[in-house]
Protein backbone atom coordinates (compact mmCIF):
# COMPACT_ATOMS: atom_id res chain seq x y z
CA UNK A 1 0.00 0.00 0.00
CA UNK A 2 2.83 2.37 0.90
CA UNK A 3 4.63 1.53 -2.32
CA UNK A 4 1.48 1.98 -4.34
CA UNK A 5 0.98 5.41 -2.81
CA UNK A 6 4.61 6.35 -3.34
CA UNK A 7 4.66 5.32 -6.98
CA UNK A 8 1.12 6.01 -8.11
CA UNK A 9 -0.44 8.58 -5.81
CA UNK A 10 2.25 10.91 -4.48
CA UNK A 11 3.56 11.89 -7.94
CA UNK A 12 0.01 12.64 -9.05
CA UNK A 13 -0.93 14.73 -6.00
CA UNK A 14 1.49 17.40 -7.13
CA UNK A 15 -0.91 18.41 -9.86
CA UNK A 16 -3.96 18.07 -7.63
CA UNK A 17 -4.08 21.83 -7.15
CA UNK A 18 -7.60 23.09 -7.03
CA UNK A 19 -8.89 20.83 -9.78
CA UNK A 20 -12.34 20.74 -8.12
CA UNK A 21 -12.78 17.38 -9.73
CA UNK A 22 -10.93 14.10 -9.27
CA UNK A 23 -8.73 13.53 -12.35
CA UNK A 24 -9.66 10.36 -14.16
CA UNK A 25 -6.14 8.94 -14.09
CA UNK A 26 -6.22 8.86 -10.30
CA UNK A 27 -9.54 7.02 -10.24
CA UNK A 28 -8.04 4.63 -12.79
CA UNK A 29 -4.92 4.10 -10.67
CA UNK A 30 -7.06 3.32 -7.62
CA UNK A 31 -9.12 0.90 -9.70
CA UNK A 32 -6.05 -0.82 -11.18
CA UNK A 33 -4.71 -1.38 -7.70
CA UNK A 34 -8.16 -2.80 -6.86
CA UNK A 35 -8.86 -0.34 -4.08
CA UNK A 36 -12.30 0.60 -5.29
CA UNK A 37 -14.72 -1.94 -4.00
CA UNK A 38 -12.40 -3.71 -1.57
CA UNK A 39 -15.33 -4.54 0.69
CA UNK A 40 -17.65 -5.59 -2.15
CA UNK A 41 -18.38 -9.24 -2.80
CA UNK A 42 -16.11 -10.96 -5.34
CA UNK A 43 -19.09 -11.90 -7.51
CA UNK A 44 -19.44 -8.22 -8.44
CA UNK A 45 -15.70 -7.83 -8.93
CA UNK A 46 -14.75 -6.76 -5.43
CA UNK A 47 -12.22 -8.30 -3.08
CA UNK A 48 -14.57 -9.06 -0.22
CA UNK A 49 -12.18 -7.84 2.44
CA UNK A 50 -13.13 -6.72 5.92
CA UNK A 51 -13.42 -3.00 6.61
CA UNK A 52 -10.26 -2.93 8.75
CA UNK A 53 -8.31 -3.60 5.55
CA UNK A 54 -10.10 -0.66 3.93
CA UNK A 55 -9.03 1.36 6.96
CA UNK A 56 -5.39 0.50 6.34
CA UNK A 57 -5.80 1.63 2.75
CA UNK A 58 -7.46 4.92 3.60
CA UNK A 59 -4.90 5.77 6.27
CA UNK A 60 -2.12 5.39 3.70
CA UNK A 61 -4.03 7.40 1.11
CA UNK A 62 -4.38 10.21 3.63
CA UNK A 63 -0.64 10.17 4.23
CA UNK A 64 -0.03 10.38 0.50
CA UNK A 65 -2.55 13.09 -0.43
CA UNK A 66 -2.42 16.05 1.95
CA UNK A 67 -5.61 17.49 0.42
CA UNK A 68 -7.39 14.28 1.48
CA UNK A 69 -9.42 14.45 -1.74
CA UNK A 70 -8.45 10.92 -2.73
CA UNK A 71 -9.26 9.45 0.71
CA UNK A 72 -12.68 11.12 0.55
CA UNK A 73 -13.40 9.64 -2.86
CA UNK A 74 -12.26 6.27 -1.54
CA UNK A 75 -14.15 6.30 1.73
CA UNK A 76 -17.40 7.50 0.21
CA UNK A 77 -17.21 4.86 -2.52
CA UNK A 78 -16.34 2.18 0.04
CA UNK A 79 -19.05 3.07 2.54
CA UNK A 80 -21.90 3.41 0.08
CA UNK A 81 -20.58 0.58 -2.05
CA UNK A 82 -20.91 -1.50 1.12
CA UNK A 83 -24.51 -0.34 1.60
CA UNK A 84 -25.40 -1.16 -2.00
CA UNK A 85 -23.64 -4.48 -1.71
CA UNK A 86 -25.53 -5.39 1.45
CA UNK A 87 -28.98 -3.93 0.81
CA UNK A 88 -29.25 -3.25 -2.94
CA UNK A 89 -31.30 -5.38 -5.32
CA UNK A 90 -29.47 -8.02 -7.34
CA UNK A 91 -30.28 -6.15 -10.55
CA UNK A 92 -28.91 -2.86 -9.25
CA UNK A 93 -25.78 -4.50 -7.86
CA UNK A 94 -24.99 -6.17 -11.19
CA UNK A 95 -25.53 -2.89 -12.97
CA UNK A 96 -23.71 -0.50 -10.65
CA UNK A 97 -20.98 -2.25 -8.66
CA UNK A 98 -18.73 -3.68 -11.41
CA UNK A 99 -18.50 -0.27 -13.11
CA UNK A 100 -17.71 1.46 -9.82
CA UNK A 101 -15.02 -1.10 -9.02
CA UNK A 102 -13.39 -0.60 -12.42
CA UNK A 103 -13.34 3.14 -11.81
CA UNK A 104 -15.69 3.83 -14.70
CA UNK A 105 -18.32 5.32 -12.40
CA UNK A 106 -18.36 6.74 -8.93
CA UNK A 107 -20.67 6.18 -6.01
CA UNK A 108 -21.56 9.08 -3.71
CA UNK A 109 -23.93 9.85 -0.86
CA UNK A 110 -26.64 12.51 -0.82
CA UNK A 111 -28.58 13.14 2.36
CA UNK A 112 -27.82 16.73 3.35
CA UNK A 113 -29.80 19.69 2.05
CA UNK A 114 -29.21 23.46 2.32
CA UNK A 115 -31.04 23.65 5.60
CA UNK A 116 -30.52 20.26 7.14
CA UNK A 117 -27.45 18.25 8.01
CA UNK A 118 -27.45 15.70 10.77
CA UNK A 119 -31.14 16.28 11.50
CA UNK A 120 -32.31 14.07 8.66
CA UNK A 121 -35.88 13.97 9.93
CA UNK A 122 -36.39 17.53 8.72
CA UNK A 123 -35.42 16.93 5.09
CA UNK A 124 -37.57 18.20 2.28
CA UNK A 125 -36.77 15.89 -0.62
CA UNK A 126 -39.62 13.49 -1.33
CA UNK A 127 -40.00 10.25 -3.16
CA UNK A 128 -43.29 8.74 -4.27
CA UNK A 129 -44.45 5.70 -6.16
CA UNK A 130 -45.69 6.00 -9.72
CA UNK A 131 -46.58 2.68 -11.30
CA UNK A 132 -43.48 0.49 -11.29
CA UNK A 133 -41.25 3.51 -10.80
CA UNK A 134 -40.45 6.10 -8.19
CA UNK A 135 -40.53 9.85 -8.70
CA UNK A 136 -38.20 12.11 -6.73
CA UNK A 137 -38.47 15.85 -6.11
CA UNK A 138 -36.35 18.16 -3.99
CA UNK A 139 -32.75 19.22 -3.72
CA UNK A 140 -29.52 18.01 -2.18
CA UNK A 141 -26.61 20.18 -1.08
CA UNK A 142 -23.02 19.85 0.24
CA UNK A 143 -22.51 16.60 -1.57
CA UNK A 144 -19.08 15.27 -2.55
CA UNK A 145 -18.41 13.98 -6.04
CA UNK A 146 -21.24 15.66 -7.93
CA UNK A 147 -19.11 16.80 -10.87
CA UNK A 148 -17.49 13.37 -11.11
CA UNK A 149 -20.86 11.60 -11.22
CA UNK A 150 -22.32 14.08 -13.70
CA UNK A 151 -19.34 13.88 -16.06
CA UNK A 152 -17.80 10.43 -15.68
CA UNK A 153 -20.98 8.65 -14.74
CA UNK A 154 -22.23 7.15 -11.52
CA UNK A 155 -24.68 8.28 -8.94
CA UNK A 156 -25.46 8.97 -5.35
CA UNK A 157 -27.07 6.90 -2.68
CA UNK A 158 -29.89 9.29 -1.81
CA UNK A 159 -32.32 9.60 1.08
CA UNK A 160 -35.82 11.07 0.68
CA UNK A 161 -39.12 11.01 2.48
CA UNK A 162 -41.64 8.42 1.33
CA UNK A 163 -44.13 8.78 4.17
CA UNK A 164 -43.50 12.29 5.59
CA UNK A 165 -45.85 11.90 8.56
CA UNK A 166 -43.73 9.06 9.91
CA UNK A 167 -40.59 11.24 10.08
CA UNK A 168 -37.41 9.22 10.15
CA UNK A 169 -39.45 6.05 9.96
CA UNK A 170 -40.85 7.02 6.58
CA UNK A 171 -37.73 7.40 4.47
CA UNK A 172 -36.47 5.55 1.42
CA UNK A 173 -32.86 5.05 0.46
CA UNK A 174 -32.23 4.67 -3.25
CA UNK A 175 -29.62 5.01 -5.95
CA UNK A 176 -29.87 8.14 -8.07
CA UNK A 177 -27.75 8.27 -11.24
CA UNK A 178 -26.69 11.82 -12.10
CA UNK A 179 -25.21 11.60 -15.57
CA UNK A 180 -27.67 12.47 -18.35
CA UNK A 181 -30.63 12.08 -16.00
CA UNK A 182 -33.51 14.35 -17.03
CA UNK A 183 -34.56 16.58 -14.13
CA UNK A 184 -31.14 16.73 -12.44
CA UNK A 185 -29.51 20.16 -12.34
CA UNK A 186 -26.13 20.27 -10.61
CA UNK A 187 -24.86 23.26 -8.67
CA UNK A 188 -21.41 23.70 -7.19
CA UNK A 189 -19.88 25.23 -4.12
CA UNK A 190 -16.22 25.85 -3.40
CA UNK A 191 -15.24 24.48 -0.05
CA UNK A 192 -11.96 25.55 1.53
CA UNK A 193 -10.23 22.21 1.44
CA UNK A 194 -10.26 18.84 -0.36
CA UNK A 195 -10.00 20.88 -3.50
CA UNK A 196 -9.44 18.00 -5.87
CA UNK A 197 -12.89 16.53 -5.42
CA UNK A 198 -16.04 18.41 -6.32
CA UNK A 199 -18.57 19.61 -3.81
CA UNK A 200 -21.99 20.74 -4.78
CA UNK A 201 -25.58 19.71 -4.96
CA UNK A 202 -28.36 19.07 -7.37
CA UNK A 203 -31.96 20.03 -7.89
CA UNK A 204 -34.23 17.06 -8.44
CA UNK A 205 -37.32 17.78 -10.50
CA UNK A 206 -39.68 14.92 -11.31
CA UNK A 207 -36.83 12.48 -11.66
CA UNK A 208 -38.01 8.96 -12.35
CA UNK A 209 -35.98 6.04 -11.10
CA UNK A 210 -36.66 2.35 -11.66
CA UNK A 211 -37.93 0.26 -8.79
CA UNK A 212 -34.80 -1.83 -8.52
CA UNK A 213 -32.77 1.23 -7.47
CA UNK A 214 -34.49 1.14 -4.08
CA UNK A 215 -31.99 0.16 -1.40
CA UNK A 216 -33.52 -1.97 1.33
CA UNK A 217 -37.17 -1.88 2.19
CA UNK A 218 -39.46 1.09 1.80
CA UNK A 219 -39.55 3.39 4.83
CA UNK A 220 -36.42 1.74 6.29
CA UNK A 221 -33.92 4.07 4.61
CA UNK A 222 -33.05 6.03 7.74
CA UNK A 223 -31.72 2.93 9.46
CA UNK A 224 -29.76 1.69 6.51
CA UNK A 225 -28.18 5.06 5.88
CA UNK A 226 -26.71 4.96 9.36
CA UNK A 227 -24.78 1.84 8.60
CA UNK A 228 -23.09 3.60 5.69
CA UNK A 229 -22.42 6.66 7.79
CA UNK A 230 -20.91 4.60 10.53
CA UNK A 231 -18.48 2.98 8.14
CA UNK A 232 -17.64 6.36 6.63
CA UNK A 233 -17.05 7.84 10.09
CA UNK A 234 -14.73 5.01 11.05
CA UNK A 235 -12.74 5.51 7.86
CA UNK A 236 -12.63 9.27 8.42
CA UNK A 237 -11.05 8.71 11.82
CA UNK A 238 -8.18 6.95 10.07
CA UNK A 239 -7.96 9.65 7.41
CA UNK A 240 -7.45 12.09 10.28
CA UNK A 241 -4.85 9.81 11.84
CA UNK A 242 -2.98 9.38 8.55
CA UNK A 243 -3.01 13.06 7.66
CA UNK A 244 -1.90 14.10 11.14
CA UNK A 245 0.81 11.45 11.32
CA UNK A 246 2.22 12.59 8.00
CA UNK A 247 2.14 16.23 9.11
CA UNK A 248 3.88 15.31 12.35
CA UNK A 249 6.59 13.54 10.38
CA UNK A 250 7.05 16.67 8.31
CA UNK A 251 7.16 18.62 11.54
CA UNK A 252 9.80 16.34 13.07
CA UNK A 253 12.04 16.74 10.04
CA UNK A 254 11.56 20.49 10.23
CA UNK A 255 12.24 21.01 13.93
CA UNK A 256 15.45 19.04 13.66
CA UNK A 257 16.73 21.43 11.01
CA UNK A 258 15.18 24.80 11.78
CA UNK A 259 17.27 26.85 14.18
CA UNK A 260 16.22 29.60 16.52
CA UNK A 261 18.57 31.34 18.93
CA UNK A 262 21.42 29.11 17.91
CA UNK A 263 19.94 25.66 18.23
CA UNK A 264 17.38 23.50 16.47
CA UNK A 265 13.88 24.32 17.68
CA UNK A 266 13.41 20.61 18.35
CA UNK A 267 15.67 21.10 21.36
CA UNK A 268 13.14 23.33 23.08
CA UNK A 269 10.85 21.70 25.61
CA UNK A 270 7.94 23.80 24.44
CA UNK A 271 8.14 22.02 21.11
CA UNK A 272 8.97 18.62 22.57
CA UNK A 273 5.95 18.54 24.89
CA UNK A 274 3.62 19.29 22.01
CA UNK A 275 5.32 16.75 19.81
CA UNK A 276 4.90 14.06 22.45
CA UNK A 277 1.25 14.96 23.08
CA UNK A 278 0.39 14.87 19.41
CA UNK A 279 2.18 11.59 18.90
CA UNK A 280 0.23 9.98 21.73
CA UNK A 281 -3.02 11.37 20.42
CA UNK A 282 -2.38 10.15 16.88
CA UNK A 283 -1.53 6.67 18.12
CA UNK A 284 -4.63 6.70 20.34
CA UNK A 285 -6.63 7.83 17.35
CA UNK A 286 -5.36 4.92 15.29
CA UNK A 287 -6.33 2.57 18.10
CA UNK A 288 -9.78 4.11 18.32
CA UNK A 289 -10.24 4.09 14.55
CA UNK A 290 -9.17 0.49 14.02
CA UNK A 291 -11.13 -0.64 17.08
CA UNK A 292 -14.19 1.07 15.57
CA UNK A 293 -13.77 -0.65 12.21
CA UNK A 294 -13.01 -3.95 13.90
CA UNK A 295 -16.25 -3.63 15.86
CA UNK A 296 -18.04 -2.88 12.60
CA UNK A 297 -16.61 -6.12 11.16
CA UNK A 298 -17.62 -7.99 14.28
CA UNK A 299 -21.18 -6.74 13.92
CA UNK A 300 -21.29 -7.91 10.30
CA UNK A 301 -20.38 -11.37 11.57
CA UNK A 302 -22.99 -11.17 14.33
CA UNK A 303 -20.40 -10.95 17.07
CA UNK A 304 -21.20 -7.41 18.19
CA UNK A 305 -24.33 -5.32 18.49
CA UNK A 306 -25.31 -2.17 16.60
CA UNK A 307 -24.86 -0.28 19.88
CA UNK A 308 -21.28 -1.49 20.20
CA UNK A 309 -20.64 -0.20 16.70
CA UNK A 310 -22.32 3.17 17.28
CA UNK A 311 -20.31 3.72 20.44
CA UNK A 312 -16.95 2.69 19.01
CA UNK A 313 -17.42 4.71 15.83
CA UNK A 314 -18.69 7.81 17.62
CA UNK A 315 -15.78 7.71 20.06
CA UNK A 316 -13.25 7.71 17.25
CA UNK A 317 -15.00 10.26 15.08
CA UNK A 318 -15.77 12.64 17.97
CA UNK A 319 -12.08 13.34 18.62
CA UNK A 320 -10.35 12.45 15.35
CA UNK A 321 -10.73 15.72 13.42
CA UNK A 322 -10.00 17.86 16.48
CA UNK A 323 -6.85 16.03 17.44
CA UNK A 324 -5.68 15.97 13.86
CA UNK A 325 -6.38 19.67 13.29
CA UNK A 326 -4.56 20.57 16.48
CA UNK A 327 -1.55 18.45 15.56
CA UNK A 328 -1.35 19.88 12.05
CA UNK A 329 -1.97 23.36 13.42
CA UNK A 330 1.08 23.05 15.65
CA UNK A 331 3.19 21.67 12.83
CA UNK A 332 2.25 24.78 10.84
CA UNK A 333 3.10 26.93 13.83
CA UNK A 334 6.54 25.33 14.12
CA UNK A 335 7.26 26.23 10.55
CA UNK A 336 6.81 29.90 11.26
CA UNK A 337 5.61 32.20 8.53
CA UNK A 338 6.24 29.46 5.94
CA UNK A 339 3.56 27.37 7.63
CA UNK A 340 0.98 29.95 6.66
CA UNK A 341 1.92 29.98 2.97
CA UNK A 342 0.36 28.00 0.17
CA UNK A 343 3.74 26.36 -0.44
CA UNK A 344 3.49 24.56 2.86
CA UNK A 345 1.86 21.18 2.20
CA UNK A 346 0.56 20.88 5.74
CA UNK A 347 -1.95 23.70 5.32
CA UNK A 348 -3.74 21.54 2.74
CA UNK A 349 -4.12 18.77 5.28
CA UNK A 350 -5.20 21.33 7.87
CA UNK A 351 -7.96 22.65 5.62
CA UNK A 352 -9.05 19.15 4.65
CA UNK A 353 -9.12 17.65 8.12
CA UNK A 354 -11.03 20.67 9.41
CA UNK A 355 -13.97 19.55 7.26
CA UNK A 356 -14.29 16.28 9.12
CA UNK A 357 -15.65 17.92 12.26
CA UNK A 358 -18.71 18.46 10.04
CA UNK A 359 -18.71 15.80 7.36
CA UNK A 360 -20.64 12.52 7.79
CA UNK A 361 -22.11 13.55 11.13
CA UNK A 362 -20.83 16.51 13.13
CA UNK A 363 -18.72 16.10 16.23
CA UNK A 364 -21.62 17.32 18.32
CA UNK A 365 -23.78 14.48 17.05
CA UNK A 366 -20.98 12.02 17.84
CA UNK A 367 -20.97 13.21 21.43
CA UNK A 368 -24.75 12.91 21.64
CA UNK A 369 -24.44 9.30 20.47
CA UNK A 370 -21.83 8.54 23.11
CA UNK A 371 -23.98 10.17 25.79
CA UNK A 372 -27.02 8.27 24.56
CA UNK A 373 -25.18 4.99 24.92
CA UNK A 374 -24.01 5.97 28.40
CA UNK A 375 -27.23 7.47 29.77
CA UNK A 376 -29.88 5.56 27.91
CA UNK A 377 -32.68 6.76 25.65
CA UNK A 378 -34.53 8.57 28.40
CA UNK A 379 -31.89 11.24 28.35
CA UNK A 380 -31.99 11.89 24.57
CA UNK A 381 -31.31 15.58 24.13
CA UNK A 382 -33.43 15.89 21.02
CA UNK A 383 -36.61 14.34 22.32
Amino acid at each position, binding site marked *: *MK*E*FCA*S*EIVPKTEKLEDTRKMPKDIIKALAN*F*ELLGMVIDPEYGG*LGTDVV*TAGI*AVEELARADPSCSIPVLFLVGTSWGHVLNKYGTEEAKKEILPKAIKGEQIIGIATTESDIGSDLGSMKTKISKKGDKYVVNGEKMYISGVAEAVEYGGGHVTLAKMTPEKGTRGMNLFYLPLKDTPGITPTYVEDIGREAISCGGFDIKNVEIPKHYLIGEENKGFYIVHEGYELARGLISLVCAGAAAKALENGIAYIKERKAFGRPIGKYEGIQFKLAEHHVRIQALRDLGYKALWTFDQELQGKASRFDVSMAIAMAKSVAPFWAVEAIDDVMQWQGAFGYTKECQDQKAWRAVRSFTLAEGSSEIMKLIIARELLGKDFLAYR
Partner: protein
Amino acid sequence: MKLVACVKQVPDTTEVKVDPKTHTLVRDGVPSILNPYDHYAVEECVRIKEKIGDGSVIVITMGPPQARSALMKCLALGADEAVLISDKAFAGSDTFATAYTLAQAIRKLGSIDMVFCGQQAIDGDTAQVGPEIAQQLGMPQVTYVEKIEIDDKHKLTIHKQTEDGYHILEAKAPLLLALLPPTSFQPGNPPMSRILKAKKKPFNIWDAEKLGGDKSKFGLDGSFTQVIKTYTPPSRGECEIIEKEGKEAAKKLGEILLKHEALIKR
Protein backbone atom coordinates in the same frame (compact mmCIF):
# COMPACT_ATOMS: atom_id res chain seq x y z
CA MET B 1 9.15 -26.61 -13.90
CA LYS B 2 10.42 -25.62 -10.52
CA LEU B 3 11.77 -22.12 -10.49
CA VAL B 4 13.58 -20.30 -7.70
CA ALA B 5 14.12 -16.59 -7.31
CA CYS B 6 16.75 -15.33 -4.88
CA VAL B 7 16.01 -11.89 -3.48
CA LYS B 8 17.36 -9.42 -0.98
CA GLN B 9 15.83 -6.74 1.17
CA VAL B 10 17.85 -3.55 0.92
CA PRO B 11 17.70 -0.05 2.34
CA ASP B 12 16.35 2.29 -0.30
CA THR B 13 19.70 3.79 -1.22
CA THR B 14 18.01 6.65 -3.00
CA GLU B 15 16.82 7.73 0.45
CA VAL B 16 20.14 7.28 2.19
CA LYS B 17 21.74 10.55 3.16
CA VAL B 18 25.09 11.45 4.58
CA ASP B 19 25.16 13.45 7.77
CA PRO B 20 26.99 16.62 6.78
CA LYS B 21 28.62 16.91 10.18
CA THR B 22 29.56 13.42 11.20
CA HIS B 23 30.03 12.11 7.64
CA THR B 24 28.24 8.93 8.55
CA LEU B 25 25.33 7.29 6.82
CA VAL B 26 21.93 8.38 8.08
CA ARG B 27 19.84 5.23 7.93
CA ASP B 28 17.15 6.38 10.34
CA GLY B 29 13.79 6.29 8.69
CA VAL B 30 15.23 4.91 5.46
CA PRO B 31 12.68 2.40 4.25
CA SER B 32 13.65 -1.18 3.50
CA ILE B 33 12.55 -2.33 0.10
CA LEU B 34 12.77 -5.35 -2.13
CA ASN B 35 15.90 -4.85 -4.22
CA PRO B 36 14.53 -3.45 -7.50
CA TYR B 37 16.57 -5.86 -9.65
CA ASP B 38 15.12 -8.76 -7.66
CA HIS B 39 11.66 -7.36 -8.26
CA TYR B 40 12.30 -7.66 -12.00
CA ALA B 41 13.65 -11.17 -11.52
CA VAL B 42 10.57 -12.31 -9.60
CA GLU B 43 8.19 -10.81 -12.13
CA GLU B 44 10.06 -12.41 -15.02
CA CYS B 45 10.16 -15.70 -13.17
CA VAL B 46 6.39 -15.60 -12.66
CA ARG B 47 5.88 -14.69 -16.31
CA ILE B 48 7.97 -17.66 -17.40
CA LYS B 49 5.97 -19.95 -15.11
CA GLU B 50 2.72 -18.64 -16.53
CA LYS B 51 4.04 -19.07 -20.07
CA ILE B 52 4.91 -22.69 -19.41
CA GLY B 53 1.53 -23.20 -17.83
CA ASP B 54 2.62 -25.32 -14.91
CA GLY B 55 5.25 -25.32 -12.24
CA SER B 56 5.94 -23.25 -9.19
CA VAL B 57 8.01 -20.28 -8.16
CA ILE B 58 9.76 -20.40 -4.80
CA VAL B 59 11.32 -17.22 -3.59
CA ILE B 60 14.13 -17.30 -1.05
CA THR B 61 16.05 -14.74 0.88
CA MET B 62 18.66 -14.73 3.59
CA GLY B 63 18.15 -11.97 6.08
CA PRO B 64 16.78 -10.82 9.40
CA PRO B 65 13.15 -11.59 10.35
CA GLN B 66 12.10 -8.19 8.96
CA ALA B 67 13.05 -9.42 5.48
CA ARG B 68 9.67 -11.12 5.60
CA SER B 69 8.13 -8.04 4.04
CA ALA B 70 10.34 -8.34 0.96
CA LEU B 71 9.21 -11.96 0.56
CA MET B 72 5.56 -10.98 1.05
CA LYS B 73 5.95 -8.59 -1.82
CA CYS B 74 7.36 -11.40 -3.97
CA LEU B 75 4.37 -13.57 -3.08
CA ALA B 76 2.12 -10.69 -4.07
CA LEU B 77 4.01 -10.49 -7.36
CA GLY B 78 2.96 -14.07 -8.01
CA ALA B 79 5.51 -16.36 -6.36
CA ASP B 80 3.92 -19.47 -4.86
CA GLU B 81 6.02 -20.10 -1.80
CA ALA B 82 8.60 -18.25 0.26
CA VAL B 83 11.59 -19.34 2.29
CA LEU B 84 13.21 -16.98 4.76
CA ILE B 85 16.64 -18.16 5.85
CA SER B 86 17.25 -16.41 9.10
CA ASP B 87 19.67 -17.11 11.89
CA LYS B 88 22.34 -15.24 13.80
CA ALA B 89 24.77 -17.80 12.39
CA PHE B 90 24.45 -16.13 8.99
CA ALA B 91 25.43 -12.68 10.22
CA GLY B 92 28.46 -11.15 8.59
CA SER B 93 28.21 -13.22 5.43
CA ASP B 94 30.17 -11.94 2.47
CA THR B 95 29.13 -12.83 -1.06
CA PHE B 96 30.72 -16.28 -0.89
CA ALA B 97 29.02 -17.25 2.37
CA THR B 98 25.74 -15.77 1.14
CA ALA B 99 25.98 -17.75 -2.07
CA TYR B 100 26.85 -20.90 -0.15
CA THR B 101 23.84 -20.47 2.12
CA LEU B 102 21.44 -19.77 -0.74
CA ALA B 103 22.85 -22.62 -2.81
CA GLN B 104 22.39 -24.94 0.16
CA ALA B 105 18.75 -23.82 0.43
CA ILE B 106 18.19 -24.38 -3.28
CA ARG B 107 19.65 -27.89 -3.01
CA LYS B 108 17.31 -28.56 -0.13
CA LEU B 109 14.35 -27.56 -2.30
CA GLY B 110 15.12 -30.48 -4.56
CA SER B 111 15.59 -30.53 -8.29
CA ILE B 112 15.39 -26.96 -9.57
CA ASP B 113 15.16 -26.04 -13.24
CA MET B 114 15.99 -22.38 -13.18
CA VAL B 115 17.29 -19.88 -10.65
CA PHE B 116 16.52 -16.18 -11.09
CA CYS B 117 18.47 -13.39 -9.44
CA GLY B 118 18.64 -9.66 -9.80
CA GLN B 119 21.82 -8.59 -11.56
CA GLN B 120 22.94 -6.81 -8.40
CA ALA B 121 21.62 -5.36 -5.17
CA ILE B 122 21.47 -1.60 -4.91
CA ASP B 123 23.16 -1.50 -1.50
CA GLY B 124 26.26 -3.52 -2.27
CA ASP B 125 26.27 -3.47 -6.09
CA THR B 126 28.58 -6.48 -6.14
CA ALA B 127 26.72 -8.61 -8.71
CA GLN B 128 28.63 -11.60 -7.31
CA VAL B 129 26.10 -13.69 -5.45
CA GLY B 130 24.30 -14.88 -8.59
CA PRO B 131 27.34 -16.33 -10.37
CA GLU B 132 28.67 -17.73 -7.08
CA ILE B 133 25.41 -19.60 -6.53
CA ALA B 134 25.54 -20.90 -10.10
CA GLN B 135 29.07 -22.17 -9.57
CA GLN B 136 28.14 -23.92 -6.33
CA LEU B 137 25.13 -25.54 -7.92
CA GLY B 138 27.13 -26.44 -11.01
CA MET B 139 24.69 -24.59 -13.24
CA PRO B 140 25.54 -22.52 -16.28
CA GLN B 141 24.73 -18.85 -15.87
CA VAL B 142 23.70 -15.89 -17.96
CA THR B 143 24.16 -12.46 -16.39
CA TYR B 144 23.02 -9.03 -17.61
CA VAL B 145 19.78 -10.52 -18.91
CA GLU B 146 17.39 -8.00 -20.47
CA LYS B 147 14.77 -10.26 -21.97
CA ILE B 148 13.77 -13.93 -21.83
CA GLU B 149 11.47 -15.89 -24.07
CA ILE B 150 10.58 -19.52 -23.69
CA ASP B 151 9.05 -21.73 -26.36
CA ASP B 152 6.83 -24.81 -26.12
CA LYS B 153 9.84 -27.09 -25.90
CA HIS B 154 11.19 -25.01 -23.02
CA LYS B 155 14.00 -23.63 -25.14
CA LEU B 156 15.06 -20.23 -23.87
CA THR B 157 15.99 -17.27 -26.01
CA ILE B 158 17.82 -14.73 -23.91
CA HIS B 159 18.93 -11.18 -24.60
CA LYS B 160 22.13 -10.53 -22.70
CA GLN B 161 23.29 -6.95 -22.47
CA THR B 162 26.84 -6.29 -23.61
CA GLU B 163 28.86 -3.13 -23.51
CA ASP B 164 27.95 -2.23 -27.07
CA GLY B 165 24.58 -3.85 -27.56
CA TYR B 166 23.30 -7.28 -26.74
CA HIS B 167 23.74 -10.95 -27.56
CA ILE B 168 20.89 -13.25 -28.40
CA LEU B 169 21.58 -16.54 -26.65
CA GLU B 170 19.95 -19.92 -26.75
CA ALA B 171 19.90 -22.09 -23.67
CA LYS B 172 18.03 -24.78 -21.84
CA ALA B 173 17.40 -25.38 -18.17
CA PRO B 174 18.99 -25.91 -15.77
CA LEU B 175 20.60 -22.52 -15.53
CA LEU B 176 20.84 -19.37 -13.46
CA LEU B 177 19.82 -15.99 -14.81
CA ALA B 178 20.76 -12.59 -13.40
CA LEU B 179 18.38 -9.90 -14.55
CA LEU B 180 18.64 -6.26 -15.46
CA PRO B 181 15.58 -4.02 -15.78
CA PRO B 182 13.50 -5.80 -18.40
CA THR B 183 13.14 -4.39 -21.89
CA SER B 184 10.08 -6.45 -22.76
CA PHE B 185 7.67 -5.42 -20.03
CA GLN B 186 7.05 -2.67 -17.51
CA PRO B 187 7.48 -3.94 -13.95
CA GLY B 188 4.69 -2.84 -11.68
CA ASN B 189 3.09 -3.14 -8.31
CA PRO B 190 0.74 -6.06 -7.70
CA PRO B 191 -2.93 -5.22 -7.23
CA MET B 192 -4.60 -5.48 -3.83
CA SER B 193 -6.15 -8.89 -4.51
CA ARG B 194 -2.70 -10.42 -5.04
CA ILE B 195 -1.38 -8.74 -1.92
CA LEU B 196 -4.23 -10.24 0.08
CA LYS B 197 -3.68 -13.66 -1.48
CA ALA B 198 0.01 -13.50 -0.60
CA LYS B 199 -0.83 -13.83 3.07
CA LYS B 200 -2.29 -17.28 2.48
CA LYS B 201 0.68 -18.74 0.62
CA PRO B 202 3.18 -21.08 2.30
CA PHE B 203 5.85 -19.18 4.18
CA ASN B 204 8.80 -21.14 5.58
CA ILE B 205 11.43 -19.95 7.98
CA TRP B 206 14.65 -21.95 8.10
CA ASP B 207 17.37 -21.51 10.67
CA ALA B 208 20.91 -22.84 10.35
CA GLU B 209 19.86 -26.14 11.92
CA LYS B 210 17.04 -26.68 9.50
CA LEU B 211 19.11 -25.61 6.51
CA GLY B 212 21.86 -28.13 7.16
CA GLY B 213 25.12 -28.03 5.23
CA ASP B 214 28.63 -27.18 6.33
CA LYS B 215 28.28 -24.78 9.26
CA SER B 216 31.85 -23.56 8.88
CA LYS B 217 30.79 -21.94 5.63
CA PHE B 218 28.07 -19.80 7.18
CA GLY B 219 28.27 -16.18 8.20
CA LEU B 220 31.49 -14.60 9.31
CA ASP B 221 33.33 -17.94 9.55
CA GLY B 222 32.52 -18.74 5.96
CA SER B 223 33.47 -15.32 4.67
CA PHE B 224 36.82 -14.67 3.11
CA THR B 225 36.56 -10.93 2.85
CA GLN B 226 36.58 -8.61 5.84
CA VAL B 227 35.48 -5.02 5.88
CA ILE B 228 38.02 -3.24 8.05
CA LYS B 229 36.89 0.35 7.65
CA THR B 230 34.05 2.36 6.18
CA TYR B 231 34.02 6.07 5.60
CA THR B 232 32.34 8.66 3.45
CA PRO B 233 34.08 9.52 0.24
CA PRO B 234 35.73 12.92 0.17
CA SER B 235 33.07 15.29 -1.06
CA ARG B 236 33.57 17.18 -4.25
CA GLY B 237 34.10 20.90 -3.91
CA GLU B 238 31.29 23.38 -4.28
CA CYS B 239 29.73 23.72 -7.69
CA GLU B 240 30.73 26.90 -9.41
CA ILE B 241 27.62 28.28 -11.07
CA ILE B 242 28.26 30.56 -14.01
CA GLU B 243 25.97 33.47 -13.16
CA LYS B 244 25.46 34.79 -16.65
CA GLU B 245 22.81 34.88 -19.32
CA GLY B 246 22.60 31.93 -21.71
CA LYS B 247 24.94 33.15 -24.40
CA GLU B 248 27.51 34.68 -22.11
CA ALA B 249 27.41 31.65 -19.85
CA ALA B 250 28.07 29.35 -22.81
CA LYS B 251 31.06 31.45 -23.82
CA LYS B 252 32.44 31.44 -20.31
CA LEU B 253 32.03 27.68 -20.11
CA GLY B 254 33.85 27.41 -23.44
CA GLU B 255 36.78 29.31 -21.94
CA ILE B 256 36.86 27.04 -18.90
CA LEU B 257 36.71 23.90 -21.02
CA LEU B 258 39.48 25.02 -23.33
CA LYS B 259 41.78 25.00 -20.31
CA HIS B 260 40.68 21.49 -19.33
CA GLU B 261 43.26 18.73 -19.74
CA ALA B 262 40.82 16.53 -21.66
CA LEU B 263 40.74 19.12 -24.43
CA ILE B 264 44.35 20.27 -24.27
CA LYS B 265 45.64 16.73 -24.67
CA ARG B 266 44.14 16.30 -28.13
